[in-house]
């Protein structure tokens, strides 16, 4: 009995001590780093309180309730206020069991800030990465030779063309179903120029069905140029790069028909694809063609992976395009992004170590306050 009593007393003492050591139970301050239109009210109530009322003085000085959801420790942001004015708040904490209440008061003046310090980490990282992108774009423009690795997909594409040549059957290239405004289509056309060059070299027939007239003229230009570069301008036939129809499923039906009729030995589906991806590859699989696909549409990648022999995943499409075209803009951006990726890898590794050794400030710096 005596033991329990001392225990209880000690526990009570501990409670009192911790309560005394706590931060001020109620604070009112200008919301830091904002546009000066809000006040941050924080509270940390002693045990026992079971409901509360947060009140704000109106223009006549009368307190009006603005918030009453109970939380032992909580905060409330009063927003849409005038800048540079004083605001007074009162918190009434009730203990209904004992029938008494505690009242806290505080006030603050709103102030607009010059910089949002919560976004410091964001700004630093953004400046670093944008700087890197610009640096690489301009050095590529000045003719500096920037290294990016060869995507292994390109090798397997060359192989597929070789196989088609052996069999004496044509190859089919679909530059996606997006218009020319889509960077995926541009990337696809860059890769097309490489494939057209190879097919001109080998003397293999190349079929390019297009969905939009803008894509059609760009594709014709690309193929023609590639044939010229390969020294076989006479082998270029304009009717092999052709328009099918604007209609999404109509286009798919058209391409399906071509695959069944012409029986191409290698199919390339590069660019933007949506739900039609699996209809195309299913037919291509049925005709026994070697299929290569590549798209930036994340939802279609799984279907390409399971029904094609080789798939360029997401950014690989752009990397392959930059590798082939050596266009300074594409190449420079890609190198800049690579810098960002390296930065992420290093920072995350550092962050994990810091978390393990208990230095939480590092992660918090990147989370930004809120």
């Amino acid at each position, binding site marked *: 009995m005596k033991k329990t009593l001392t225990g209880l007393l000690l526990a009570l003492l501990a409670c009192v001590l911790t309560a005394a050591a706590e931060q001020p139970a109620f604070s009112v301050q200008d919301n830091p780093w904002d546009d000066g239109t809000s006040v941050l009210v924080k509270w940390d109530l002693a045990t026992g309180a079971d409901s509360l009322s947060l009140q704000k003085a109106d223009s006549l000085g009368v307190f009006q309730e603005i918030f009453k959801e109970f939380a032992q420790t909580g905060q409330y942001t009063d*927003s849409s206020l005038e800048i540079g004015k004083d605001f007074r708040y009162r918190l009434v904490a009730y203990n209904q069991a004992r029938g008494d209440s505690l009242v806290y008061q505080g006030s603050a003046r709103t102030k607009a800030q010059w910089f949002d310090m919560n976004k410091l980490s964001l700004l630093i990282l953004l400046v670093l990465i944008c700087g890197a992108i610009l640096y690489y774009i301009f050095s590529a423009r000045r003719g500096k030779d920037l290294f990016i690795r060869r995507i292994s997909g390109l090798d397997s594409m060359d192989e597929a063309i070789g196989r088609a040549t052996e069999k004496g059957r044509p190859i089919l290239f679909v530059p996606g179903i997006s218009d020319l405004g889509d960077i995926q289509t541009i990337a696809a056309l860059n890769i097309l120029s490489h494939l057209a060059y190879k097919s001109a070299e080998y003397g293999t027939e190349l079929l390019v069905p297009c969905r939009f007239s803008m894509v059609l003229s760009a594709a014709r230009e690309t193929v023609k140029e590639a044939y010229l570069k390969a020294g076989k301008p006479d082998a270029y036939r304009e009717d092999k790069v052709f328009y099918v129809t604007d209609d999404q499923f109509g286009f798919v039906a058209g391409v399906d028909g071509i695959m069944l009729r012409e029986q191409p030995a290698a199919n390339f589906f590069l660019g933007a694809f949506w739900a039609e991806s699996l209809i195309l590859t299913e037919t291509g699989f049925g005709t026994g063609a070697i299929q290569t696909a590549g798209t930036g549409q994340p939802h279609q990648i799984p279907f390409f992976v399971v029904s094609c022999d080789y798939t360029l995943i997401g950014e690989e499409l752009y990397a392959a395009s930059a590798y082939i075209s050596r266009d300074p803009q594409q190449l420079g951006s890609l190198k800049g992004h690579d810098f960002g990726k390296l930065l992420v890898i290093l920072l995350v590794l550092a962050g994990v170590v810091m978390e393990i050794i208990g230095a939480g400030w590092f992660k918090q710096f990147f989370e930004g306050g809120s």
Partner: protein
Amino acid sequence: MKMPERSVVERRIVFLLLVLAVALPIIFPLGLKTQSTPLTEQVYDLVNSLPAGVPVIISFDYDPSTITELQPMAEAVIEHAWKKGHKIIATAMWPQGPQVAEMAFKDVQARMEKQNPSVKKHIYGEDFINLGYKPGGLVTIQGMGRSMEAIFPTDTSGLKYAEIPMLKPVRTLKDIRYVISLSAGDPGLRDWIMTANGKFNVPVAGGTTAVSAPGFLPYVNDQKQLHGLMGGLKAAAEYELLLGYEGTASLGMNPQSVAHILILAFILFGNIRAWKKRKADKLAQEARHG
């Protein structure tokens, strides 16, 4: 243009089997029970944690092509929010959104009355409001963070923002206690995460079609960029389970489950067939080369 006869026939058999696998369990439900998962529970807990009277946004960012998946979610969330007494503000990033929102409110009220005839009649303008469609995705949401009234001068019936009683305490998006976006693509949940949560710190939860669900999981993290995620019909059924009723989603899980098994069987047979064919080809090749 014509496909080889065999493959056409094969294809039609596949189609027919799929129709049967879906239709039969609709006609004769198997009474399968679903199990709730943490991601759906998180959404439920967010709605459950708030007291009566708080203003919330449910955004209808989809069109009829995905109603099978998203409408049951919308109905479940509305019912839950109403039961908790939250004031629902319906917005839409897709033009068909306001219309499906209207349907959802009507159906939920009807269902609740059917279950319990004495249930509260939810009044337009007091318990819920339909603010309609606005284009612009994250740009527009960012505008809501400055002033809701500037983006939504009126509701869909032409009522002025200032004259709607339940919108009195809502000056900006920051006054909203949670946003639940039911999203079929772009613009949608991602814009709400980036803007409502990323910029204004409003809790955001979401329901998406199953197609896009895996891509949203990185946002469910310690920073609470996303408070839980409902992905597809299964998640809608889970939410119905948490609320304690069997709606269209729960019933839909019967055909859904059977059809999954059928698709798996197709993949299995397809692979066996391809393997056999490869073996036969190899034998033929060896025979040719002697």
